[in-house]
Structure formats: structure tokens, C-alpha cells
């Protein structure tokens, strides 16, 4: 296949301009803040089924950095304590390691945060404030939506 010479010339010009810092189309005009080291998404809570007083919270944690981090603890604004229950119970005390550029996905049967002694009624559609403490990234807040008690797992069900 022959490459038409105008294309070669155009590519050379763009390349040279790029090296000279003149091509800026792919970059924003103002410098953006670096991505957060830890991104928490898809946070949700299944409220307690009366007369139970414990709820389960779930979320996805993305580690955007090139070094591992550790989720050490979680607190919630609606209960007296929150305990991380991973699929392997032995990880409870040390927290959960999230590899560099790795993810932690909590879903039904695959780890949850148990919020104990819920002080208020968790109504579907309202939210719960979570604070996730990481060894490196520090405290990362997350807002978890309360699903109806009898609704299926919004993560997609992964039993």
C-alpha cells in the first residue's frame, strides 16, 4: 500500500509542531487536577429487615495510583459502628489490600460493610454518608443510596 505524500508531509508537520509544543488540541487549556488516588463508586445500602438492626453497605473502590493501598476502616453516619466483612473473614482486622490500578468490588456474598445499631430508619431513596479510611489516601467520603429492602442487588447479583 502506498501512502500519498501529502499525508506524509502533513504527519511530519504535525509531529514537528507537537514536539515544539504547538499542538495542544488533546490537552485542556487549563491544567486539570490529577485524578483522585482512590475513586469510590456505586455505593448502596440494603436497610435492615426488622427486627434486625444491622444494614449492609456495598461499594466499588478504584485505586488509580501505581502503588497498592489498603482500606483500613469504614464509618457510617447512621450506625454505631461499621465492620468490614470481606469474602475472606480473615481480612477484617488488617483491612483489604487494593493493588496498584486495582479494584475492590463489594457485592452480595462478596464482602460488605455491616453497619450496626442503626439509629434511624433507612428509607429507600435516601442516602447514607460513608467515610472510607485508606492507609495512603486517607479518608475518602462516599454517598451510598438506600435501596428498598426487598430489591435485588443493584450490583448485578453475584452470588
Amino acid at each position, binding site marked *: 500500500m502506498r501512502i500519498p505524500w501529502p499525508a506524509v508531509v502533513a504527519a511530519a508537520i504535525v509531529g514537528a509542531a507537537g514536539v515544539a509544543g504547538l499542538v495542544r488540541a488533546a490537552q485542556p487549556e487549563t491544567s486539570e487536577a490529577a485524578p483522585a488516588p482512590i475513586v469510590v463508586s456505586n455505593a448502596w445500602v*440494603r436497610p435492615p429487615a426488622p*427486627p434486625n438492626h444491622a444494614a449492609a453497605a456495598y461499594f466499588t473502590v478504584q485505586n488509580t495510583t501505581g502503588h497498592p493501598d489498603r482500606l483500613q476502616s469504614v464509618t457510617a453516619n447512621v450506625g454505631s459502628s461499621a465492620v468490614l466483612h470481606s469474602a475472606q473473614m480473615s481480612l477484617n482486622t488488617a483491612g483489604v489490600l487494593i493493588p496498584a490500578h486495582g479494584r475492590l468490588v463489594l457485592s*452480595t456474598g462478596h464482602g*460488605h460493610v*455491616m453497619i450496626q445499631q442503626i439509629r434511624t430508619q433507612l428509607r429507600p431513596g435516601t442516602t447514607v454518608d460513608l467515610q472510607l479510611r485508606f492507609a495512603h489516601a486517607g479518608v475518602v467520603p462516599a454517598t451510598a443510596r438506600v435501596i428498598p429492602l*426487598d430489591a435485588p442487588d443493584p450490583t448485578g447479583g453475584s*452470588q
Partner: protein
Amino acid sequence: MKKVLLAGLAALLLVAGCSSSGGSSSKPSGLNDNPGTGPYMGVGSIPPLPRPSFTLLTDDNKPYSFAKQTDGKTTLLFFGYTRCPDICPATMADIGVALRGLPASVSSKVTVVFVSTDVKHDIGPIIARWLQSFSAGTHATFVGLYGSQP
């Protein structure tokens, strides 16, 4: 849609380890992964699991012989406990969603048996209250069992 929901129920039957064959015979389960050729859609266990036989107390303190009282009935059997915030309510929620999606003529023939594994905490009134969250709006029969047997 009905078939999909029945498939869901069939899968739950399998999860519950409760074949649809009566008694403790090794008669093949009604579960079937060939659509349209059996009473249920789903994946049957090979060999079929026999229907377990045990007697525990209902949440209103009456003896309930599982094998006898569910014989010939489409039954979903689940072992869990009410202080479990994760997989127990999620499983019961899934059952409730499937049942509410069925015509009443079908769901009214389904029995859901919840057996508590927390013998120290889960007594009748606690189980009864807990089940209400999941049975509401369905036409199925929900049975909560507790206690222990030798």
C-alpha cells in the same frame, strides 16, 4: 416473562438443594435445561438431591415435618438467619421479586421455607417479623422454622 421467572425459581430450588421430586427417592428432578420440555427451566442437579426430611417448629410453635408438608409442592428451601445483613435478605429479596412477578395462580402454589441457623437468637416472633418484609405482596406460602433436632 413467566418462563424467565420460573427459571429463576428453578435456580433457587437448586440453590436450596431441594429437588422437586417427592420423598427421598432418586427420581429425576423436574428441573430441565431444555426449554419447554419439563415443568421448570433451569439446571437440575445430577444426581438429583433427595428432599430432606426433618421436623422443626414453625414461628407459631407448631411442629412442621418438612418432607411430609411440602411433598408434591414446589418448594424453595433456604437456610439463613435474621441477623445476617447480606446474603440472607438478598436471597429472600430475590425470591420475593420472582414471586411477585408471577401470576397469582402460579405463585400461590409455591411454598417458601426459611430455616433459621441461629438457634440461640431466632425464635418464633423474630422470624415471623423478619419474613414479613419479603412475603409482602406475594401469594406464596412462607414458613419460618426454628429449633433443633437430634
